[in-house]
């Protein structure tokens, strides 16, 4: 009697466990399956001659487009020798040495090992954290991965040792990344959309792959994931206190393809200039794009459908207070800003970007405006704009209220229709690293 009742309890339990296992196995397969656990299951590509100068040259261009150098180099450190700090909600980690050093770098790797990193996000050290943009690089073709590998292997080796990550349990275990991967990662092969032209497809390949634009320009979901519904819809750059505006039909409605391409290649454009993390991306990577590739990227991002409205930060500034801030802001604007940005917010040529109709200024999230008024900015030096003009910082001289008034004024004038900014919001950015 007691025996049969025990069995009675056991069956559903077993069923649940079994169902769980099946789902887990299915998710495991979806996140990449066996190659993510067993290196030899990755499969080899067609043999490549890593010494081929043409391959190396192509790899160099692709490595620049992927901005490997910015994330894998510290100031005064050896190029590509890693050590850059990444502060994430899950702890602090460091990029690694990807020079051909046998002990501390990737000198003993094969092209297959490298492909496993790019395509699956798994290296000999285990599952890589998604601070490394493998969710983008997975879109790369095998040929492009091989070319980048050939380039990296052609560079001088550096024995610079890797830094120890500082992550709390359970995030310090690389195996924990498997859980994240099962939920959010699928290895992908880029498939051109036959209904679109070659230029558009090239653009999408670069944006979703090496360009990893969505790392900075998309809203995040749980556990810093990048849900498809927020693809390029605008989002906060993790850990940096800057906002990447929407890159889609709506967000870029005012930008022509040429404007966007100019911003990518020179850091300035008739519609807006690069600053914060975008200046970083332009300085180290995007300025080296060929005119054709920059145009392809621009062509593609202008067609991205607006899925979810960009995030709105609701704040309590009532109508009377808004009016007061507007009045104070206007007076301050005339005194402090109008010389460069003009009384009508139109800007002055490529030297001083327009504030009227500028998506960075009117984004639902006002952090860029607050930060740039506090800290000023210098556009990056590029071949197309080697001697940039600069914007003064105001945080050292103006009060939080004055900065809030200025931010409110430029967000709500000349046709701009964004929310007001309160002094309390401005105060939040004191001491946030630049």
């Amino acid at each position, binding site marked *: 009697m007691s025996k049969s009742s025990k069995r009675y309890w056991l069956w559903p339990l077993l069923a649940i466990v079994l169902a769980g296992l099946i789902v887990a196995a299915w998710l495991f397969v979806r996140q990449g399956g066996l190659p993510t656990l067993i290196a030899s299951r990755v499969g080899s590509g067609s043999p490549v001659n890593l010494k081929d100068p043409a391959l190396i040259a192509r790899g160099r261009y692709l490595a620049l487009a992927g901005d490997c150098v910015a994330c894998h180099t*510290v100031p005064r450190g050896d190029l590509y020798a890693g050590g850059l700090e990444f502060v994430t909600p899950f702890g602090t980690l460091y990029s690694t040495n990807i020079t051909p050093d046998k002990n501390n770098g990737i000198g003993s790797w094969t092209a297959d090992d490298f492909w496993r990193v790019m395509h699956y996000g798994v290296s000999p050290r285990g599952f890589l954290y998604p601070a490394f943009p493998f969710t983008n690089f997975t879109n790369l073709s095998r040929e492009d991965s091989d070319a980048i590998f050939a380039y990296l292997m052609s560079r001088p080796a550096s024995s610079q040792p890797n830094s120890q990550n500082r992550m709390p349990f359970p995030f310090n275990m690389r195996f924990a990344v498997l859980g994240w991967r099962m939920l959010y990662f699928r290895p992908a092969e880029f498939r051109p959309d036959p209904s679109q032209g070659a230029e558009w497809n090239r653009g999408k390949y670069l944006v979703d792959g090496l360009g990893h634009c969505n790392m900075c320009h998309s809203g995040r979901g749980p556990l810093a994931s990048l849900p498809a519904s927020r693809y390029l819809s605008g989002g906060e750059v993790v850990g940096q206190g800057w906002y990447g505006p929407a890159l889609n039909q709506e967000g870029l409605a005012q930008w022509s393809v040429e404007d966007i391409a100019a911003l990518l290649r020179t850091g300035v454009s008739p519609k807006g200039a690069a600053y914060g993390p975008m200046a970083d991306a332009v300085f180290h990577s995007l300025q080296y794009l060929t005119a054709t590739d920059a145009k392809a990227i621009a062509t593609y991002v202008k067609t991205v459908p607006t899925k979810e409205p960009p995030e709105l930060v609701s704040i309590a500034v009532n109508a009377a207070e808004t009016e007061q801030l507007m009045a104070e802001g206007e007076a301050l604007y005339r005194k402090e800003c109008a010389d460069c940005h003009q009384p009508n917010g139109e800007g002055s040529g490529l030297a001083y970007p327009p504030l009227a109709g500028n998506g960075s200024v009117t984004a639902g999230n006002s952090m860029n405006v607050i930060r740039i008024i506090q800290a000023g900015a210098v556009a990056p030096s590029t071949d197309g704009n080697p001697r940039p003009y600069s914007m003064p*910082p105001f945080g050292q001289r103006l009060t939080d209220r004055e900065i809030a008034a200025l931010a409110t004024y430029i967000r709500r004038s000349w046709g701009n229709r964004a929310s007001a900014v309160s002094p309390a919001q401005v105060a939040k950015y004191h001491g946030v690293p630049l």
Partner: protein
Amino acid sequence: METTQLPHAARAASPTRRPGRPESWAAWLIVAILGVFGAGGKAVAAEVPDTMEQRLMGCAACHGVHGEGVAYNQFYPRLSGKSADYLYHQLKAFKDGQRRYTQMVYLVRFMDDAYMREVADYYARQAPHYEPPASTEGIAPAVLQRGQALVEQGDAQLGVPACAACHGTRLEGRDPAIPRLVGMSRSYLTAQLGGWKNGARQAVAPDCMHEVVDRLSTADIEAVGIWIASRPGSDTLQAEPASATQKLPLVCGSMQQ
């Protein structure tokens, strides 16, 4: 920028159309509007001067347009007339993370080498800005003597070397890392020295300035400030070159980099 619109608009309003008719009023209105915008647009584009002065308006907020400093805050150093090499190395140190003042690091991070050189040259070319030598009237001779002695000879008993041993015999500074003292105001000098004494201002270890100032009394600091501020600067005063291989009396962290 929109200059091509002007002739067209003018033609539309040519006298062959009779005045007073609604469309000619509209035409005149268009001329007026385009005129304003056209001229405005042109003026705007032409107004941004292609000069370093204009390009560096961002820096002017804290350093003054010509590197002469700003009245609202004496903390921000003057740049005018300092050696181009010294300034370039400071910019590079910010960019490379050796100097860590966040605001500076942020602004120079994406400048390339050629531009940093040009920025340094711009400020080096500006006439050095000296506070006029402060009058010593009404200051007790003993204070002046003490100040002069500390600056020129130091105080062996306290273990304090002469300021001039490092900063140059005429306090003109020494390339590439020791700043000029002549031309600084008494209040700025005593504030900086006081800051070193109480730890508010720090340099890369070993912090030689802290070591020196720690051995001085507040009265000594006052005396030094008074004496230095009374020294005249001149436009021809150049920093001592780095090749002056005279051995420095102390080891300074900021010199070793």
